[in-house]
């Protein structure tokens, strides 16, 4: 009796949850970028006064949650569930932050797609009558990601032009069952897609097939047209992934170029030497919670398709010669119900 299901991968919410508040905290590099005026807290030092980068990341996660609560005038006790994840092994940033918060907690792993995975599941919990207030958050940190997936920081290596820069930051969103919008009206859940890309330095190429698949199925399931959307924004395809994605969509008859933006491209500018662009779970989280929601609230965009994308590799899988599977979760955000 899945009455709210549309097609194979999409749900339409009968009582669309409302976005009550959002909060962002970013590192110094992001705070020097083109979106710096849209972030709540900019750190001057990415160790955030902690003894390790992992501790710093967890602290950022926690502070983003605390700030979102403060902005909504909520106490943590009013939150029914927290949904959170990050890029680290065993999602320690989210879980160790949850340790402080005393709230029923679901840990999520969607790599860089965690933000929209959290928004989707949070919206389902609310629309399903299981919760009134949800908070979802995610974080990432350049240094924690480098030491886990790639190289020690002082290693003298050259980054290829396809590589992306993991964003240091955390973003949190509070959803409620009441409220005046913006609303999450639909959510399309991605399938894991792997077309054999093995290069861990080219995340864009690894994720593009999943991104294309989710977008195409979103339009098929909902019957929406591209024109109905003011903006279609992806999490961290970055420059290389964007070109591939647009070509894949065009081949299937979808031309979204005029409506398209990507968080990984927007968050840094060319002078910051990030090659293809930003990435990391925080990339989509801080751009969404900082910049995009502001644009929607100010009426710049009325209806947006927001889709974070993730590359589901592990350090072990890469070393074993495995290719990189991708996933992409999309939500429709609208000022009207």
């Amino acid at each position, binding site marked *: 009796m899945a009455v709210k299901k549309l097609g194979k991968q999409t749900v339409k919410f009968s009582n669309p949850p409302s976005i009550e508040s959002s909060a962002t905290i970013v590192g110094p*590099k992001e705070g020097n970028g083109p979106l710096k005026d849209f972030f709540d807290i900019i750190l001057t030092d*990415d*160790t955030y006064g902690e003894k390790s980068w992992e501790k710093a990341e967890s602290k950022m996660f926690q502070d983003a949650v605390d700030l979102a609560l403060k902005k909504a005038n909520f106490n943590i006790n009013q939150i029914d569930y927290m949904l959170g994840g990050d890029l680290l092994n065993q999602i320690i940033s989210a879980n160790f932050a949850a340790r402080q918060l005393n709230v029923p907690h679901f840990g999520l792993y969607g790599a860089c797609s965690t933000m929209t995975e959290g928004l989707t599941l949070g919206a389902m919990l609310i629309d399903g009558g299981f919760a009134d207030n949800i908070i979802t958050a995610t974080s990432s940190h*350049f*240094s924690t990601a*480098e030491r886990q997936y790639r190289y*020690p*920081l*002082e290693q003298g*290596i*050259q980054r290829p032009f396809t590589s992306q820069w993991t964003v240091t930051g955390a973003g949190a969103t509070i959803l409620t069952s009441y409220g005046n919008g913006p609303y999450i009206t639909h959510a399309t859940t991605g399938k894991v897609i792997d077309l054999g890309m093995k*290069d861990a330095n080219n995340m864009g190429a690894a994720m593009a097939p999943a991104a294309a698949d989710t977008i195409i199925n979103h339009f098929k399931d909902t019957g929406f047209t591209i024109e109905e959307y003011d903006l279609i924004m992806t999490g961290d395809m970055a420059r290389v992934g964007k070109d591939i994605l647009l070509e894949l969509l065009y081949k299937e008859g979808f031309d979204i170029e005029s409506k398209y933006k990507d968080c990984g491209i927007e968050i840094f500018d060319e002078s910051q030497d990030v090659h293809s662009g930003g990435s990391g779970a925080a990339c989509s989280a801080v751009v969404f919670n900082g910049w995009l929601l502001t644009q929607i609230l100010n009426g710049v965009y009325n209806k947006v398709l927001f889709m974070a994308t993730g590359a589901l590799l592990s350090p072990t899988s890469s070393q074993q010669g495995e290719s990189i599977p991708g996933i992409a979760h999309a939500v429709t955000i609208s000022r009207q119900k």
Partner: protein
Amino acid sequence: MDYLKAFIVGGLICAVAQILIDKTKLTPARILVLYVTLGSILGGLGIYKSLIELGGAGATIPLLGFGNTLAQGVIKAVNKDGFIGIFTGGLSAGAGGIGAAIFFGYLFSIIFNPKTKK
């Protein structure tokens, strides 16, 4: 004059590695393994010493030279000690570099902290 030769020989060895990095999917770690093994083989065949005569430090400083050092060490040790030399020769010839790397690695990791990339 020997500085010019060292510069050219050393530079060329690095340039070849750069081509391998950019044109193939070989990671830096694999290229280092390739170089040290190659240096060892060329040393064992007696070829590498001509490159050293030509380029001096330009041939000994790159990791190819380290491989050659290991091979020379083995040959000398086998000549001197026979069978045991097979196992002792290489590592002892390289002991200076490896010992220094271990010690200074440990020392500097205590003194210094890694800095965030800009």
